């Protein structure tokens, strides 16, 4: 079942395109925003609402790296691993995160608080290295800054 809020947001996306199915990426994002990830049940619900097959929707869901088809933590850390951040030392951030949180790429902390994922270029290369947590961008990050940044996300 979709909530009334989810339906409102999905309908808004449908109104911007000629047919329901075309809004499927936005619909997945709406549901993910409310539920954290796209479970098989959510997938079936969205497919039904958009009048498309579940497999068709899953082929789209699994293509896009920011649609999560398995559970993630309450906060998702996207660490930029592209060239400018590599030159400026993002690997040290990855090491510090691994030491501090005990997780590497694709993993979630045991308390369900953080998931760590690599992400292609965040488009802030003059302020490398960079990372995002949920919707927030952090630039010129040093390993020393990580602990205080992370503490904001409960």
């Amino acid at each position, binding site marked *: 079942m979709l909530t009334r809020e989810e339906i409102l947001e999905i309908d808004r996306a449908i109104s*911007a*395109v*000629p047919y329901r*199915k*075309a*809004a*499927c*990426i*936005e619909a*997945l*994002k709406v549901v993910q925003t409310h539920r954290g990830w796209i479970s098989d049940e959510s997938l079936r619900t969205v497919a039904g609402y958009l009048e498309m097959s579940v497999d068709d929707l899953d*082929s*789209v*869901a*699994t*293509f*896009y*790296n*920011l*649609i*999560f*088809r*398995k559970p*993630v933590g309450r906060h998702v850390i*996207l660490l930029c*691993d*592209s*060239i*400018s951040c*590599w*030159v*400026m030392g993002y690997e040290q951030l990855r090491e510090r995160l691994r030491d501090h949180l005990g997780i590497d*790429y*694709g993993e979630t902390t045991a308390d369900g608080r953080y*998931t760590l*994922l*690599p*992400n*292609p*270029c*965040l*488009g*802030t*290369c*003059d*302020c*490398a290295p960079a990372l*995002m947590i949920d*919707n*927030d*961008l952090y630039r010129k990050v040093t390993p020393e800054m990580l602990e205080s940044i992370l503490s904001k996300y409960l």
Partner: protein
Amino acid sequence: MEKPLTQHIRADGKPLSLNEYERVGGYSALRKVLSGMTPGDVLNVVKDSNLRGRGGAGFPTGLKWSFVPQDGPRPRYLICNADEMEPGTFKDRLLLECTPHQLIEGMIIAAFAIGADVSYVFLRWAYREAARIINVAIHEAQEAGYLGRNILGSGYDLAMHLHTGAGRYICGEETALLNSLEGKRAIPRAKPPFPQVSGLFGKPTIVNNVETLCCIPPIITHGAEWFRKLSLTSDAGTKIYGVSGKVKKPGAWELPMGVSLRELIEEYAGGMLDGHKFRGALPGGASTDFLVELDVKMDYSSVAAAGSRLGTGTVVVLDDRTCPVGFVRNLEQFFAQESCGFCTPCREGIPWIRNILTAMENGEGMPGDIDLLERHARGLGPGHTFCAFAPGAMEPLQSALRFFRDDFIRHIEEHTCPWREHPVNDHNSRGFVVPHLQTNYHAADTH
């Protein structure tokens, strides 16, 4: 020095509101267009201006628009490609976040020129602040009568929507972008038919980059000749250049088209960080060949003559304390992960290259590896793959093999990376036998 794209940007980096933009002459170009110019007039001015696409390919904008059939089916679409994901590129973010109304004005004029009924901004997911700003700006423009029905009493109607993506670099390829906007996997389409004839939902469509569209209002206001004269060379206009890497003042600046790479790095970026020497640079993002000479004019034709491409015009610098093999390995890791997987050479070939480079970095390089890499660079070059993704991925590799060959040889002969203390732990290089599982870090792919 004239800066038609960035001159009104606020010092605090906040977006220019509608009122602020109007006070500095904003939307006067649109008024000029709608109070007497025909779509053909607009097209001719843009053609005469010699404006070329700023997204990377450099295709002449007016020519692209002219391919939309006059009596083609409706609705027609105008799309702003704001899926800035080329590694090392951060120029469109500046325009999206700081001067959203100039983009919207440029989009409305472009849409009028091609007779579009509906327009979309295709924005990458990661630009959260830009999404908020563009949403506000579209709303402001609607309230002011610049969008919607009967714009400024002209009888012209245009709807505008913001679409934010869900990741994947390939969405920036214009036909993959169309598929994504239709709610499909972002896989490039065969051409022909070209999008101008059969694009979004099978209807005539123009896709232009953010920076390209931001050039349109000043071209209409000041004319084609003025725009051509902004440049130092035969490629017209100004360009937003950027520099990142180990320089003193990395950043982005609007400068006349054709400034030299030397000026960009030594003057605007403040030179190399102390203790670092320049070895080379990617002139326009991850999918451009290395330049090792600084005295190259940064325009389309001069960079091409020097053996590379202007691309996005945002430079990534390689210094002497950074390993060129590791540098290229990072790029190929990106391309291996971001390949859409549709065509075999790209899906299988790039992970193979990444694995060889990882092996080299970990001291497991073998004598035949350089030949193997060169064979891949040819086999994945232009004409062998479905779209331009893999040929782009080969550009930094093939040029690195030429300019930094001794460094590759050293990795193999010394069984170690001379720059690296710890092994690369991303992939188990030689033991990694199933290259098409390259997306194993994506949560999406592991369910």
